[in-house]
């Protein structure tokens, strides 16, 4: 059976979640590997959530926020951007491929972009194969 990754996505309420809704109302089709968690702002997404998702078995984590300058709360997305880069360095150091964590900007009108992003990310993760965090933790000796 082909490897079907699980991707946990954190979407901000104002742009990205709405964009994902738009993909739905427009009946765009995309890979079903994604599991969405709604937060008010991408600025709320903290490393703990991302690491937790990996620990629980996620193969990839996607964070989406408003485009730079568009944040409903002015600059939460910039905060997210800063954390994202540090976190990427960390997970890479922890033996994971950077690409397993991805940040992108999706506006409320970008349903199509969201669908494409999910497909692309799914593809990338498929190529990377399963994430070993959960396995590794479960088999600690």
């Amino acid at each position: 059976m082909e490897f079907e990754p699980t991707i946990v996505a954190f979407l901000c309420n104002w742009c990205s979640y709405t964009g994902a809704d738009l993909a739905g109302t427009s009946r765009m089709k995309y890979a079903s590997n994604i599991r969405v968690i709604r937060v008010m702002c991408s600025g709320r997404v903290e490393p703990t959530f991302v690491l937790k998702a990996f620990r629980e078995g996620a193969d990839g984590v996607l964070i989406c926020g408003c485009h730079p300058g568009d944040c409903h709360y002015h600059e939460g997305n910039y905060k997210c951007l800063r954390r994202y880069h540090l976190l990427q360095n960390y997970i890479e150091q922890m033996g994971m491929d950077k690409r397993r964590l991805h940040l992108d900007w999706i506006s409320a009108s970008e349903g199509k972009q969201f669908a494409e992003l999910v497909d692309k990310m799914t593809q990338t993760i498929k190529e990377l194969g399963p994430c070993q965090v959960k396995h590794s933790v479960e088999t600690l000796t």
Partner: protein
Amino acid sequence: MSDNEKPKLKLAVYWGAACGGCCVSVLDVHEKLFNVVAAADLVFWPIALDIKYKDVEAMPDGHIDVTLFNGAIRNSENEHMAHLLRKKTKVLVAYGSCAHMGGIPGLANFTTKEELFRRVYDESESTVNPDKIRPQTSFTVPEGVLHIPEFYNDVRALDQVVDVDYYLPGCPPQTERLVDVFMAIVTGAELPPKGSVVGAYDKSQCDECERKKTDNKKIKAFKRPWEIQDDGETCFLEQGVICMGPATRGGCGVRCIKGNAPCRGCYGPPADVTDPGAKMMSAIATMIDSDDEDEIVEIVNQVADPAGTFYRFSLPGSILRRKIVQTV
């Protein structure tokens, strides 16, 4: 000692994968040791008393009142003793950073048993081992079969092996805190709920730290401590130096900071924080003073070793626990 006096507590101290500093911290009790000894009998303390494992095994379950278990679980002996002491002890305390979160030995989780062995038994400059002989867990000699503890691939914190009642953090724990805790137990004060951290404060380092703190936490460049002109007064973070203080419990007496070195986090996270490294990463990254992606990357890359920096004492206890090694 009269009969109507309270029976003395039975105290054990054990040393897992540790540097010995924790045991020294117990010794550091100095003259207060008399108070301790007055209230307690030391029934097991390998570095100080010649009491054999079998003596412990012989004890009835729950015989020991309090065990201070320091050190991480690195090998089968550590694990065996953890289980044994758990069985024999009423209150098992994870004593020190290693038992608490994995500590410095936990940094070995960045690598594997195989890599370590290769380095130690094959590659190190002082090793002559043409046959590439590796330690065996059992080895037959004319005298019989020798058993050597098995070296594990991963380092674990104590509570990842056995049930722990309390945690007393620190590398090493502040001796005064130990005395406080001990005396509390001795005097029969009401014990905190199981799983609590004792011997440390609820609030983190900054509460005690006397350096001046403002809301101006904006980092344009990360600095190592020697790269700044420290006036001894300004918050390290405001000078661009990563200080784990805000994500680390108080209780050590801000000793590092008083010594003009930033906190490195040995006292572990405050309550409710699952992963102090992640929290600190989040806080530190937020402080980066740039909205330009390229510049952000540039600044972030100045943190050369994020995992080592933010998880110096807590890697095995963190969410990811260890570096992933592709097994497939």
